[in-house]
C-alpha cells in the first residue's frame, strides 16, 4: 500500500531498508545516524517481520555481524556516523574483497561543520578506497528509494554498497511517498571459498573486485537519480551538484531566474564519466558543489584535465571547510545576497552543558578538587556527554580524541613518567573501545587511574542501551585489575567527600585502578517518570 509520510532523512532510510526486505540492522549510536536504528527498533512492521535491531557494542562488531548475515544470504544494514567508518574500516574494506551474499548496505552519516563530531571526514573516500558503489541521496524521497536500490545493487554486483548522507539530510524532515515492502531473503549460506581471505584466495578475490569496477562504474552512470540538464545557451557555466548540495543550487537558481547553467546532479559514484565529459563540452567552466571534502572536485580534474576551469572548495570559490548552505552557494554562483538586519548586539554564546543534577558534574567536582592536590596531574577525556567537562566551569580535560583514547593516552603518558595520569570514560564508550586499552595497561602494570563514569546509558545520542550495563566490575577484574582497586561510588553532591577519598587512594596506588561512579542519566530518569 502506497503511503505519504513526513519523515526525517534517517527515517526514510530506515523505512526504505525495511521495504527492501531487511533482516537485520547493526549499529552503534552516533549523531547524525542514530534515528535510523531507532526507527527500526520502534517499527511495528519490523517487529512483526522479526527484524534484528538491538544496538551493537561498536561499529566493527556491527559491520562484521552484518557481513555474517549477508554471508547467510539475508539483507543487512549497518549504520554509523562518519567516524564510525574508522572503527569498522578493517571489516568494511575486506567485505568488498570477500563480496557479499544477501544485500549489504553500509550507511555513513557525515557531519560537515562538526555539529556533533570531532572531525568532518568524508565517507566517500572510504567507498573509493574499498572500490564499492557509493550512493548519495539529495532528499528524503531519494533517501527512501535509493536505499532500496542500494540493496538490489549490492546483490546484483556482489559487493557492499556505501550509502552516504550528511547531517542536513539525516535530520531534515519532508514528505515521502512509500511503496510496497518486499519479503526478506531466505537462509542461503554461501559455499564459496572466497570468504576465506588467505593470501592465495584474497589475491583472486581482489582481482574479482577489480573486474567488477566496470560494472560498478556503469551502475553509477545509469543511476536514475543522477541527471544531466543542459540549457539552450552555448557555453553556459556548468555545475556539478552532489547529494544535498543540489537542493541549495536549485533553490537559489529558482529564486533568481534568468541565470542559465548546465547542471549535472550526482547521486551515485564513481562520477559518471560520459556525462561529465558532455557537461564539460557544453560548459565554459565547471563549479563543483559538494558537502564534505573535495572528492568529486578531484575526480573531475582527473577526467577533464588541467586545461579546463574547475571551481570548488580547492580553488577557494567555495569555503574549504564546513557544510554548504544556500548563502555560500548563492555567493559562489554570483547571485546577490539579500539585505538583512545586522547581527544582534546583545548576544552571548550558549554552549551545551551537562544537565542540572547530572552525575558527571559530581565526578568532575570531586576530581578537580583531588587533582588540585597533584599539580602535575592530567585528565584524559573521551567521547560522550562528559566531554563537556572540558568546558567551564570544570575545564578538567587535557584531551578528547576518539572512542577509548582516554585510557590508552593516559597509559602512554604514564609510561612516559607522567603522574598522576587519569582517564575519564563513559560506560558505553568503555565497552565500545576502552576494554582493550585497559588490558594493555594491566599487562604493562601502567600507573593509571581510570574513572568509568557510568550513567547506565548511551546518553549523548539520546539514551540508548549501553552494552556493558551491570557488567563493569566483572569486566575490569576479568581483565586483571585487582578487585580491591575496582571501586564503585554513587556520584551525588553529598557523597563528594567519600568520592574524593577513594580517588585519592587510587591515584596514590601505583598500578591500574578503576573508579566507577554510577548513577542513572537525568534524561533517561526523567523519561521513565513521565
Amino acid at each position, binding site marked *: 500500500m502506497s503511503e*505519504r509520510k*513526513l519523515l*526525517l532523512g534517517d527515517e526514510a532510510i530506515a523505512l526504505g531498508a525495511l521495504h527492501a526486505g531487511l533482516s537485520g540492522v547493526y549499529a552503534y549510536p552516533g*549523531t*547524525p545516524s*542514530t*534515528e535510523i536504528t531507532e526507527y527500526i527498533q520502534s517499527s511495528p512492521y519490523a517487529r512483526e517481520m522479526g527484524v534484528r535491531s538491538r544496538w551493537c557494542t561498536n561499529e566493527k562488531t556491527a559491520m562484521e555481524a552484518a557481513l555474517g548475515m549477508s554471508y547467510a544470504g539475508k539483507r543487512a544494514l549497518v549504520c554509523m556516523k562518519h567516524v564510525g567508518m574508522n572503527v569498522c574500516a578493517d571489516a568494511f574494506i575486506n567485505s568488498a574483497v570477500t563480496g557479499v551474499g544477501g544485500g549489504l548496505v553500509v550507511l555513513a552519516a557525515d557531519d560537515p561543520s562538526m*555539529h*556533533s563530531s570531532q572531525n568532518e571526514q568524508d565517507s566517500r573516500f572510504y567507498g573509493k578506497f574499498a572500490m564499492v558503489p557509493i550512493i548519495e541521496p539529495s532528499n528524503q524521497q531519494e533517501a527512501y528509494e535509493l536505499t532500496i536500490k542500494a540493496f538490489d545493487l549490492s546483490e546484483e554486483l556482489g559487493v557492499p554498497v556505501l550509502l552516504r548522507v550528511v547531517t*542536513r*539530510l539525516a*535530520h*531534515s*524532515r*519532508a*514528505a515521502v511517498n512509500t511503496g510496497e515492502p518486499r519479503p526478506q531473503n531466505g537462509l542461503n549460506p554461501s559455499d564459496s571459498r572466497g570468504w576465506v581471505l588467505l593470501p592465495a584466495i584474497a589475491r583472486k578475490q581482489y582481482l574479482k573486485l577489480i573486474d567488477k569496477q566496470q560494472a560498478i562504474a556503469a551502475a553509477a552512470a545509469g543511476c536514475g537519480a543522477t541527471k544531466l540538464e543542459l540549457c539552450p545557451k552555448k557555453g553556459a557555466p556548468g555545475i556539478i551538484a552532489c547529494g*544535498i548540495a543540489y*537542493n*541549495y543550487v*536549485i*533553490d*537559489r537558481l*529558482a*529564486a533568481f531566474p534568468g541565470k542559465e547553467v548546465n547542471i549535472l546532479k550526482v547521486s551515485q559514484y564513481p562520477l559518471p564519466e560520459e556525462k561529465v565529459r558532455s557537461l564539460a563540452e557544453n560548459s565554459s567552466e565547471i563549479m563543483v558543489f559538494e558537502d564534505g571534502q573535495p572528492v568529486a572536485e578531484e575526480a573531475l580534474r582527473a577526467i577533464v584535465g588541467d586545461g579546463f576551469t574547475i571551481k570548488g572548495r580547492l580553488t577557494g570559490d567555495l569555503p574549504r571547510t564546513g557544510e554548504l*548552505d*544556500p*548563502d555560500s552557494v*548563492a555567493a559562489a554562483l554570483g547571485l546577490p*545576497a*539579500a*539585505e*538583512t*538586519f*545586522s*547581527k*544582534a*548586539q*546583545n*548576544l*552571548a*554564546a*550558549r*554552549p*551545551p*552543558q*551537562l*544537565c542540572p543534577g547530572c552525575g558527571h558534574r559530581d565526578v568532575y567536582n570531586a576530581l578537580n578538587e583531588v587533582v588540585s592536590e597533584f599539580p602535575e596531574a592530567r585528565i584524559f577525556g573521551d567521547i560522550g*556527554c562528559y566531554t*563537556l567537562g572540558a568546558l567551564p566551569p570544570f575545564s578538567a580535560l587535557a584531551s578528547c580524541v576518539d572512542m577509548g583514547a582516554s585510557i590508552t593516552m593516559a597509559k602512554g603518558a604514564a609510561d612516559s613518567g607522567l603522574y598522576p595520569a587519569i582517564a575519564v570514560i563513559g560506560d558505553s564508550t568503555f565497552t565500545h573501545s576502552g576494554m582493550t586499552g585497559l588490558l594493555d595497561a594491566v599487562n604493562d602494570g601502567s600507573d593509571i587511574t581510570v574513572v568509568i563514569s557510568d550513567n547506565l546509558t548511551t546518553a*549523548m*545520542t*539520546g539514551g540508548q542501551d549501553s552494552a556493558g550495563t551491570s557488567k563493569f566490575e566483572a569486566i575490569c577484574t576479568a581483565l586483571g585489575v585487582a578487585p580491591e582497586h575496582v571501586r564503585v561510588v554513587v556520584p551525588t553532591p553529598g557523597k563528594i567527600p567519600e568520592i574524593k577519598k577513594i580517588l585519592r587512594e587510587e591515584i596514590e596506588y601505583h598500578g591500574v585502578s578503576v573508579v566507577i561512579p554510577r548513577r542513572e542519566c537525568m534524561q533517561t530518569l526523567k523519561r521513565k517518570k513521565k
Partner: protein
Amino acid sequence: MKTDIILCGVGGQGILSIATVIGEAATACSLYLKQAEVHGMSQRGGDVQSDLRLSDSPVGSDLIPRGEADLIISMEPMEALRYIDRLSNGGTVITSSRPFVNIPNYPAQEDIMRELESLPHLVAADIEALAAERKFPRSANMLLLGMAAPYLSIIPREELRSAVERVFARKGKAVVEANLAAFDLGTSIK
C-alpha cells in the same frame, strides 16, 4: 506562496513540538515542507534551532537563505536575537520575553528587549508566566504557537488547532485540553 520559519530556543524548551504541530498541519493542508532539525550535542542546554519551510510549490533547500525568514518563533528572547540577520525585512519576531539564564555572561534583559523592540514587527509575551497563571505551565510552547498563528496564514487556523489535538492525543485528554487552551490564549496576544 511560502512561509519560512526559524524556530529557536534552548535545548529542552520544546521547540521540536512546535515544529511537529506545524508539520502535521501543513501536511494535512497538502503543503510542501522541509524541516531541518538540530539533534545531538546542542540539545544539552545549548542553543537549538530548526528551519521550517512551508510552500505551495516544492521546496528546494532544507535551509532558509539569509534574509528570507518570514518568522522567527522563539522560546527565549536572546535566542530570537541570535537569528535576526536571517530575518527578511518585512519579517516578524514572535518570542517569549522571559530570559533563560544558564550562562554567566547573559546580557541585561532590558538591552535584549530594547534591541528586539527596535525591529519593525515584534510580538513578545511572558508565555511562561501566562501559562503558569492559567494552570497549564507545560504548554507555554503551544501558547507561543498560538501567538504565531495569525502570521502563519499559509495554514488555516482551524487546521493548526486540530493538529495540536492530533499531536497530543496519545498523551490523554487533559494534556490535549491544556494545549488547546494555551493555543487559544496565544492567538489573542497581539
